[in-house]
Protein backbone atom coordinates (compact mmCIF):
# COMPACT_ATOMS: atom_id res chain seq x y z
CA UNK A 1 0.00 0.00 0.00
CA UNK A 2 1.41 3.38 -0.98
CA UNK A 3 1.91 5.97 1.68
CA UNK A 4 3.48 9.38 2.15
CA UNK A 5 6.62 9.57 4.29
CA UNK A 6 8.94 12.43 5.13
CA UNK A 7 12.62 11.93 4.40
CA UNK A 8 15.32 14.33 5.57
CA UNK A 9 17.99 14.46 2.92
CA UNK A 10 20.92 16.86 2.99
CA UNK A 11 19.10 18.89 5.62
CA UNK A 12 15.89 19.32 3.60
CA UNK A 13 12.59 17.58 4.26
CA UNK A 14 10.94 15.80 1.34
CA UNK A 15 7.43 14.35 1.32
CA UNK A 16 7.49 11.33 -0.93
CA UNK A 17 4.92 8.74 -1.94
CA UNK A 18 6.41 5.27 -1.60
CA UNK A 19 5.55 1.61 -1.29
CA UNK A 20 7.02 -0.25 1.72
CA UNK A 21 9.25 -2.32 -0.57
CA UNK A 22 10.86 0.71 -2.26
CA UNK A 23 14.62 0.85 -1.76
CA UNK A 24 16.30 4.08 -0.75
CA UNK A 25 18.52 4.05 -3.87
CA UNK A 26 15.48 3.99 -6.17
CA UNK A 27 13.60 6.64 -4.21
CA UNK A 28 16.63 8.96 -4.30
CA UNK A 29 17.28 8.50 -7.99
CA UNK A 30 13.83 8.03 -9.47
CA UNK A 31 11.43 9.90 -7.20
CA UNK A 32 13.63 12.74 -5.95
CA UNK A 33 15.94 13.11 -8.96
CA UNK A 34 18.98 12.91 -6.68
CA UNK A 35 20.95 10.92 -9.23
CA UNK A 36 24.37 11.59 -7.70
CA UNK A 37 24.08 8.38 -5.72
CA UNK A 38 24.89 5.55 -8.13
CA UNK A 39 23.47 2.09 -8.34
CA UNK A 40 26.07 -0.56 -9.07
CA UNK A 41 25.75 -4.20 -8.09
CA UNK A 42 22.42 -3.73 -6.28
CA UNK A 43 23.39 -6.31 -3.67
CA UNK A 44 25.63 -4.50 -1.24
CA UNK A 45 29.03 -5.50 -2.61
CA UNK A 46 30.32 -2.56 -4.64
CA UNK A 47 29.65 0.39 -2.32
CA UNK A 48 28.85 2.95 -5.02
CA UNK A 49 25.41 3.57 -3.47
CA UNK A 50 26.99 4.52 -0.12
CA UNK A 51 25.21 7.33 1.72
CA UNK A 52 25.48 8.41 5.34
CA UNK A 53 22.46 7.81 7.57
CA UNK A 54 22.72 9.53 10.95
CA UNK A 55 26.43 9.90 10.18
CA UNK A 56 27.09 6.20 9.56
CA UNK A 57 27.82 4.57 6.24
CA UNK A 58 24.83 2.79 4.70
CA UNK A 59 24.21 1.02 1.41
CA UNK A 60 21.18 2.63 -0.22
CA UNK A 61 20.58 -0.50 -2.33
CA UNK A 62 19.96 -2.59 0.83
CA UNK A 63 18.01 0.03 2.75
CA UNK A 64 14.23 0.35 2.74
CA UNK A 65 13.27 4.00 2.21
CA UNK A 66 10.44 3.62 4.71
CA UNK A 67 12.96 2.68 7.42
CA UNK A 68 14.67 6.07 6.98
CA UNK A 69 11.84 8.19 8.35
CA UNK A 70 13.14 10.45 11.09
CA UNK A 71 16.78 9.89 10.15
CA UNK A 72 19.31 12.25 8.59
CA UNK A 73 20.42 11.12 5.13
CA UNK A 74 23.49 12.66 3.51
CA UNK A 75 24.09 12.09 -0.21
CA UNK A 76 26.78 13.42 -2.52
CA UNK A 77 24.50 16.35 -3.42
CA UNK A 78 24.72 17.51 0.21
CA UNK A 79 28.51 17.73 0.27
CA UNK A 80 28.93 21.06 -1.53
CA UNK A 81 27.87 24.17 0.32
CA UNK A 82 26.77 27.38 -1.44
CA UNK A 83 28.29 26.26 -4.72
CA UNK A 84 31.66 25.40 -3.15
CA UNK A 85 32.77 21.80 -3.30
CA UNK A 86 33.59 20.03 -0.06
CA UNK A 87 37.36 19.74 0.54
CA UNK A 88 37.12 15.97 -0.05
CA UNK A 89 35.50 16.53 -3.46
CA UNK A 90 38.09 19.19 -4.37
CA UNK A 91 40.92 16.87 -3.31
CA UNK A 92 39.54 14.10 -5.58
CA UNK A 93 39.63 16.53 -8.52
CA UNK A 94 43.04 18.00 -7.72
CA UNK A 95 44.67 14.60 -7.21
CA UNK A 96 43.17 13.03 -10.34
CA UNK A 97 41.30 10.49 -8.24
CA UNK A 98 38.39 10.31 -10.69
CA UNK A 99 38.52 8.23 -13.83
CA UNK A 100 35.10 7.08 -15.01
CA UNK A 101 33.59 8.64 -11.89
CA UNK A 102 31.04 5.94 -11.13
CA UNK A 103 32.52 4.98 -7.76
CA UNK A 104 33.30 8.59 -6.81
CA UNK A 105 30.11 9.55 -4.90
CA UNK A 106 30.39 6.45 -2.71
CA UNK A 107 34.14 6.92 -2.27
CA UNK A 108 33.65 10.54 -1.19
CA UNK A 109 31.01 9.59 1.39
CA UNK A 110 33.11 6.73 2.74
CA UNK A 111 36.01 9.17 2.99
CA UNK A 112 33.77 11.60 4.88
CA UNK A 113 32.71 8.90 7.35
CA UNK A 114 36.37 7.99 7.85
CA UNK A 115 37.63 11.55 8.30
CA UNK A 116 34.77 12.50 10.63
CA UNK A 117 36.07 9.80 13.00
CA UNK A 118 39.79 9.80 12.19
CA UNK A 119 40.85 13.30 11.10
CA UNK A 120 44.46 12.16 10.56
CA UNK A 121 44.23 8.58 9.28
CA UNK A 122 47.23 6.41 8.42
CA UNK A 123 47.46 4.98 4.92
CA UNK A 124 46.25 1.65 6.31
CA UNK A 125 43.23 3.32 7.91
CA UNK A 126 42.42 5.06 4.63
CA UNK A 127 42.56 1.74 2.78
CA UNK A 128 40.31 0.12 5.39
CA UNK A 129 37.99 3.13 5.23
CA UNK A 130 37.41 2.72 1.50
CA UNK A 131 37.59 -1.09 1.52
CA UNK A 132 33.85 -1.30 0.92
CA UNK A 133 34.02 0.78 -2.27
CA UNK A 134 35.17 -0.83 -5.48
CA UNK A 135 36.82 1.21 -8.26
CA UNK A 136 36.79 -0.85 -11.43
CA UNK A 137 39.14 1.64 -13.09
CA UNK A 138 41.45 0.49 -10.25
CA UNK A 139 42.42 4.08 -9.50
CA UNK A 140 43.04 3.34 -5.85
CA UNK A 141 46.47 4.95 -5.55
CA UNK A 142 45.10 8.37 -6.51
CA UNK A 143 42.03 7.87 -4.33
CA UNK A 144 44.17 7.13 -1.27
CA UNK A 145 46.28 10.23 -2.10
CA UNK A 146 43.12 12.33 -2.40
CA UNK A 147 41.80 11.18 0.98
CA UNK A 148 45.16 11.94 2.60
CA UNK A 149 45.14 15.37 0.94
CA UNK A 150 41.55 15.99 2.04
CA UNK A 151 42.52 15.14 5.63
CA UNK A 152 45.29 17.76 5.48
CA UNK A 153 42.91 20.37 4.02
CA UNK A 154 40.29 19.70 6.68
CA UNK A 155 42.93 19.84 9.43
CA UNK A 156 44.24 23.15 8.08
CA UNK A 157 40.72 24.57 7.92
CA UNK A 158 40.02 23.38 11.49
CA UNK A 159 43.28 24.90 12.78
CA UNK A 160 42.45 28.14 10.98
CA UNK A 161 39.00 28.15 12.60
CA UNK A 162 40.57 27.71 16.04
CA UNK A 163 42.94 30.63 15.49
CA UNK A 164 40.17 32.99 14.42
Amino acid at each position, binding site marked *: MKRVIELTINGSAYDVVISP*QDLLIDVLRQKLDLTGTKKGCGQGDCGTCTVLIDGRRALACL*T*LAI*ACEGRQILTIEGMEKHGVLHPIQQAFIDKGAIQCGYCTPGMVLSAKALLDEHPAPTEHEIKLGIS*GNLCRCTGYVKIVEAVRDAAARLQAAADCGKGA
Partner: protein
Amino acid sequence: MSLPPFEYLAPGSTAELAGLLAAHRERCRILAGGTDLVNWMAEKIYRPDYVIDLRKLPLAAITYEKGRGLTIGAAATIESLERSPVIREFYYALVQAAGQIGSPQIRAMATIGGNCCNASPCADMPPPLITLEARVALTSARGSREVPLEEFITGNRQTAIAPDEFLECVRVPDPWPHSACRYSPFGLRAAQEIDIASVAVNVALDPATGLFAKARIAMGAVAPFAMRALKAEASLVGNAPSGETIDQAALVCSRECRPIDDLRASASYRRHIVGVLARRMLRDAVAAITS
Protein backbone atom coordinates in the same frame (compact mmCIF):
# COMPACT_ATOMS: atom_id res chain seq x y z
CA MET B 1 16.34 -5.16 -8.55
CA SER B 2 12.95 -4.69 -6.96
CA LEU B 3 11.40 -6.35 -3.97
CA PRO B 4 8.09 -8.18 -3.86
CA PRO B 5 5.41 -6.22 -2.00
CA PHE B 6 4.95 -6.55 1.75
CA GLU B 7 3.48 -4.62 4.65
CA TYR B 8 6.04 -2.80 6.81
CA LEU B 9 5.66 -2.79 10.58
CA ALA B 10 7.91 -1.06 13.12
CA PRO B 11 6.72 -2.01 16.61
CA GLY B 12 7.53 0.36 19.46
CA SER B 13 7.92 -2.27 22.19
CA THR B 14 9.09 -5.86 22.48
CA ALA B 15 5.59 -6.79 23.72
CA GLU B 16 4.14 -5.39 20.51
CA LEU B 17 6.79 -7.26 18.50
CA ALA B 18 5.88 -10.52 20.27
CA GLY B 19 2.20 -9.88 19.52
CA LEU B 20 2.88 -9.31 15.82
CA LEU B 21 4.97 -12.48 15.59
CA ALA B 22 2.27 -14.50 17.38
CA ALA B 23 -0.36 -13.17 14.97
CA HIS B 24 1.57 -13.51 11.69
CA ARG B 25 4.09 -16.29 12.44
CA GLU B 26 5.60 -17.69 9.19
CA ARG B 27 4.10 -14.82 7.20
CA CYS B 28 6.65 -12.35 8.60
CA ARG B 29 10.39 -11.79 8.53
CA ILE B 30 12.31 -9.67 11.01
CA LEU B 31 14.39 -6.81 9.57
CA ALA B 32 17.48 -5.71 11.48
CA GLY B 33 20.41 -4.55 9.32
CA GLY B 34 18.82 -5.85 6.13
CA THR B 35 22.11 -6.87 4.53
CA ASP B 36 20.92 -10.46 4.07
CA LEU B 37 17.13 -10.07 4.17
CA VAL B 38 16.86 -7.42 1.44
CA ASN B 39 19.02 -9.50 -0.90
CA TRP B 40 17.01 -12.63 -0.16
CA MET B 41 13.72 -10.83 -0.79
CA ALA B 42 15.14 -9.46 -4.05
CA GLU B 43 16.06 -13.00 -5.08
CA LYS B 44 12.52 -14.10 -4.04
CA ILE B 45 13.99 -16.58 -1.55
CA TYR B 46 11.65 -14.96 0.96
CA ARG B 47 8.30 -13.42 0.11
CA PRO B 48 7.03 -12.28 3.51
CA ASP B 49 3.64 -10.63 3.86
CA TYR B 50 5.00 -8.57 6.74
CA VAL B 51 8.46 -7.15 7.33
CA ILE B 52 8.93 -6.27 10.99
CA ASP B 53 11.65 -3.69 11.56
CA LEU B 54 13.48 -3.71 14.92
CA ARG B 55 14.72 -0.14 14.56
CA LYS B 56 12.44 1.44 17.16
CA LEU B 57 13.26 -1.15 19.84
CA PRO B 58 15.97 -0.79 22.50
CA LEU B 59 17.80 -3.93 21.37
CA ALA B 60 21.21 -2.53 20.41
CA ALA B 61 22.90 -2.23 23.81
CA ILE B 62 26.16 -3.98 24.75
CA THR B 63 26.60 -4.33 28.52
CA TYR B 64 29.10 -6.13 30.74
CA GLU B 65 28.87 -6.78 34.45
CA LYS B 66 31.41 -8.86 36.32
CA GLY B 67 29.71 -12.03 37.52
CA ARG B 68 26.91 -11.72 34.97
CA GLY B 69 29.00 -11.53 31.84
CA LEU B 70 28.32 -9.82 28.52
CA THR B 71 24.90 -9.09 27.04
CA ILE B 72 24.72 -8.09 23.40
CA GLY B 73 21.34 -6.84 22.16
CA ALA B 74 20.16 -8.54 18.97
CA ALA B 75 20.25 -5.30 17.00
CA ALA B 76 23.79 -4.33 18.06
CA THR B 77 25.71 -3.72 14.85
CA ILE B 78 28.85 -5.61 13.95
CA GLU B 79 30.63 -2.23 13.95
CA SER B 80 29.54 -1.59 17.54
CA LEU B 81 30.99 -4.97 18.62
CA GLU B 82 34.24 -4.22 16.83
CA ARG B 83 34.52 -0.91 18.68
CA SER B 84 33.31 -1.96 22.12
CA PRO B 85 36.12 -1.44 24.68
CA VAL B 86 34.72 -4.12 27.00
CA ILE B 87 34.57 -6.72 24.23
CA ARG B 88 38.11 -5.81 23.20
CA GLU B 89 39.31 -6.28 26.77
CA PHE B 90 37.54 -9.51 27.72
CA TYR B 91 36.38 -11.21 24.52
CA TYR B 92 39.03 -10.36 21.93
CA ALA B 93 38.02 -13.14 19.52
CA LEU B 94 34.71 -11.33 18.97
CA VAL B 95 36.56 -8.18 17.89
CA GLN B 96 38.67 -10.28 15.52
CA ALA B 97 35.52 -11.83 14.04
CA ALA B 98 33.54 -8.58 13.80
CA GLY B 99 36.41 -6.82 12.05
CA GLN B 100 36.43 -9.43 9.29
CA ILE B 101 32.79 -9.24 8.27
CA GLY B 102 31.94 -7.73 4.88
CA SER B 103 32.88 -4.09 4.38
CA PRO B 104 32.71 -1.02 6.65
CA GLN B 105 29.25 -0.36 5.21
CA ILE B 106 28.06 -3.90 5.91
CA ARG B 107 29.51 -3.77 9.45
CA ALA B 108 27.67 -0.50 10.12
CA MET B 109 24.36 -2.09 9.09
CA ALA B 110 24.56 -5.82 9.92
CA THR B 111 23.73 -7.07 13.41
CA ILE B 112 24.75 -9.86 15.77
CA GLY B 113 21.17 -11.15 15.77
CA GLY B 114 21.12 -11.36 11.99
CA ASN B 115 24.50 -13.08 11.85
CA CYS B 116 23.29 -15.77 14.29
CA CYS B 117 19.71 -16.19 13.00
CA ASN B 118 20.67 -16.32 9.32
CA ALA B 119 23.03 -19.15 10.25
CA SER B 120 25.31 -19.13 7.25
CA PRO B 121 27.88 -21.96 7.49
CA CYS B 122 30.63 -19.37 6.97
CA ALA B 123 29.23 -16.72 9.36
CA ASP B 124 32.02 -15.16 11.40
CA MET B 125 30.35 -14.58 14.78
CA PRO B 126 29.14 -18.10 15.71
CA PRO B 127 32.56 -19.85 15.99
CA PRO B 128 34.03 -17.47 18.61
CA LEU B 129 30.66 -17.13 20.38
CA ILE B 130 30.39 -20.91 20.66
CA THR B 131 33.87 -21.18 22.17
CA LEU B 132 32.82 -18.51 24.70
CA GLU B 133 29.76 -20.60 25.71
CA ALA B 134 27.31 -18.00 24.37
CA ARG B 135 23.58 -18.48 24.79
CA VAL B 136 20.78 -16.79 22.89
CA ALA B 137 17.67 -15.43 24.63
CA LEU B 138 14.56 -16.22 22.59
CA THR B 139 11.42 -14.34 23.47
CA SER B 140 7.79 -14.70 22.45
CA ALA B 141 4.37 -13.87 23.85
CA ARG B 142 4.65 -17.27 25.58
CA GLY B 143 7.73 -16.23 27.55
CA SER B 144 11.53 -16.38 27.26
CA ARG B 145 14.01 -19.21 27.01
CA GLU B 146 17.77 -19.44 26.70
CA VAL B 147 19.49 -21.85 24.35
CA PRO B 148 23.23 -22.42 23.88
CA LEU B 149 24.17 -20.95 20.49
CA GLU B 150 25.73 -24.30 19.66
CA GLU B 151 22.27 -25.92 19.85
CA PHE B 152 20.43 -22.93 18.38
CA ILE B 153 22.08 -23.25 14.97
CA THR B 154 20.89 -26.60 13.65
CA GLY B 155 21.99 -26.61 10.02
CA ASN B 156 22.83 -24.60 6.93
CA ARG B 157 20.62 -21.50 7.43
CA GLN B 158 18.52 -23.39 9.97
CA THR B 159 17.93 -22.56 13.62
CA ALA B 160 15.77 -23.70 16.51
CA ILE B 161 13.82 -20.42 16.60
CA ALA B 162 10.03 -20.86 16.64
CA PRO B 163 7.92 -18.82 14.21
CA ASP B 164 6.57 -16.64 17.03
CA GLU B 165 9.96 -16.02 18.69
CA PHE B 166 12.58 -13.32 18.24
CA LEU B 167 16.20 -13.35 19.33
CA GLU B 168 16.38 -10.70 22.04
CA CYS B 169 20.04 -10.86 23.00
CA VAL B 170 23.18 -12.97 23.06
CA ARG B 171 24.62 -13.68 26.52
CA VAL B 172 28.26 -14.58 27.06
CA PRO B 173 29.43 -15.65 30.53
CA ASP B 174 32.43 -14.10 32.24
CA PRO B 175 35.73 -15.15 30.71
CA TRP B 176 37.30 -18.22 32.31
CA PRO B 177 40.11 -17.34 34.75
CA HIS B 178 43.58 -17.32 33.10
CA SER B 179 42.06 -17.68 29.65
CA ALA B 180 42.29 -16.13 26.21
CA CYS B 181 40.19 -16.45 23.07
CA ARG B 182 41.29 -15.94 19.50
CA TYR B 183 39.65 -16.18 16.05
CA SER B 184 40.96 -16.24 12.53
CA PRO B 185 39.12 -16.62 9.28
CA PHE B 186 40.94 -17.50 6.07
CA GLY B 187 39.95 -16.33 2.61
CA LEU B 188 41.61 -15.74 -0.71
CA ARG B 189 41.82 -11.96 -0.34
CA ALA B 190 41.79 -9.43 2.48
CA ALA B 191 38.53 -7.48 2.02
CA GLN B 192 34.90 -8.47 1.46
CA GLU B 193 35.77 -12.14 1.41
CA ILE B 194 33.68 -15.20 2.15
CA ASP B 195 35.75 -17.50 4.34
CA ILE B 196 36.93 -20.85 3.08
CA ALA B 197 37.56 -21.86 6.70
CA SER B 198 37.81 -20.25 10.12
CA VAL B 199 38.87 -21.36 13.60
CA ALA B 200 38.05 -19.94 17.04
CA VAL B 201 39.74 -21.08 20.25
CA ASN B 202 39.15 -20.31 23.91
CA VAL B 203 41.61 -21.88 26.35
CA ALA B 204 42.38 -21.57 30.05
CA LEU B 205 45.58 -22.60 31.82
CA ASP B 206 45.75 -23.86 35.39
CA PRO B 207 47.82 -21.17 37.17
CA ALA B 208 49.33 -23.74 39.56
CA THR B 209 50.43 -26.38 37.06
CA GLY B 210 50.54 -24.38 33.83
CA LEU B 211 48.58 -27.14 32.06
CA PHE B 212 45.53 -26.61 29.86
CA ALA B 213 42.57 -26.54 32.27
CA LYS B 214 39.79 -25.87 29.75
CA ALA B 215 39.60 -25.69 25.99
CA ARG B 216 36.97 -24.98 23.37
CA ILE B 217 37.59 -24.93 19.66
CA ALA B 218 35.00 -24.16 16.97
CA MET B 219 35.50 -24.34 13.21
CA GLY B 220 33.53 -22.36 10.60
CA ALA B 221 32.83 -23.00 6.92
CA VAL B 222 33.88 -26.65 7.19
CA ALA B 223 30.49 -28.16 8.10
CA PRO B 224 26.82 -27.10 7.67
CA PHE B 225 27.27 -24.95 10.80
CA ALA B 226 30.07 -23.92 13.13
CA MET B 227 31.19 -27.18 14.76
CA ARG B 228 33.12 -27.92 17.92
CA ALA B 229 36.38 -29.85 17.63
CA LEU B 230 35.56 -32.03 20.65
CA LYS B 231 38.40 -34.52 20.21
CA ALA B 232 40.96 -31.76 19.75
CA GLU B 233 39.64 -30.00 22.86
CA ALA B 234 39.98 -33.23 24.86
CA SER B 235 43.52 -33.71 23.58
CA LEU B 236 44.54 -30.38 25.13
CA VAL B 237 43.04 -30.58 28.61
CA GLY B 238 45.53 -31.75 31.24
CA ASN B 239 48.50 -31.34 28.93
CA ALA B 240 51.21 -28.71 28.88
CA PRO B 241 50.73 -25.91 26.33
CA SER B 242 53.78 -27.07 24.37
CA GLY B 243 54.31 -26.89 20.64
CA GLU B 244 53.85 -30.65 20.52
CA THR B 245 50.45 -30.60 22.28
CA ILE B 246 49.26 -27.76 20.06
CA ASP B 247 50.49 -29.41 16.83
CA GLN B 248 48.69 -32.61 17.82
CA ALA B 249 45.43 -30.74 18.58
CA ALA B 250 45.68 -28.88 15.25
CA LEU B 251 46.06 -32.21 13.44
CA VAL B 252 43.00 -33.56 15.24
CA CYS B 253 41.02 -30.45 14.18
CA SER B 254 41.86 -31.00 10.53
CA ARG B 255 40.65 -34.61 10.86
CA GLU B 256 37.49 -33.69 12.80
CA CYS B 257 36.11 -31.07 10.43
CA ARG B 258 33.71 -32.08 7.67
CA PRO B 259 34.39 -29.75 4.73
CA ILE B 260 33.01 -29.95 1.21
CA ASP B 261 34.53 -29.18 -2.19
CA ASP B 262 33.08 -26.03 -3.70
CA LEU B 263 34.07 -23.15 -5.93
CA ARG B 264 36.02 -21.46 -3.13
CA ALA B 265 38.24 -24.37 -2.09
CA SER B 266 38.60 -28.12 -2.11
CA ALA B 267 37.77 -30.14 0.99
CA SER B 268 41.37 -31.27 1.39
CA TYR B 269 42.66 -27.68 1.23
CA ARG B 270 40.09 -26.67 3.83
CA ARG B 271 41.31 -29.46 6.14
CA HIS B 272 44.86 -28.23 5.73
CA ILE B 273 43.86 -24.63 6.46
CA VAL B 274 41.87 -25.63 9.56
CA GLY B 275 45.02 -27.29 10.96
CA VAL B 276 47.11 -24.21 10.22
CA LEU B 277 44.59 -21.81 11.76
CA ALA B 278 44.07 -24.00 14.85
CA ARG B 279 47.82 -24.12 15.49
CA ARG B 280 48.20 -20.35 15.06
CA MET B 281 45.20 -19.49 17.23
CA LEU B 282 46.21 -21.88 20.02
CA ARG B 283 49.74 -20.45 20.03
CA ASP B 284 48.35 -16.88 20.06
CA ALA B 285 45.96 -17.65 22.91
CA VAL B 286 48.63 -19.36 25.02
CA ALA B 287 51.02 -16.45 24.40
CA ALA B 288 48.30 -13.99 25.45
CA ILE B 289 47.74 -15.83 28.75
CA THR B 290 51.40 -16.32 29.61
CA SER B 291 52.66 -12.87 28.57
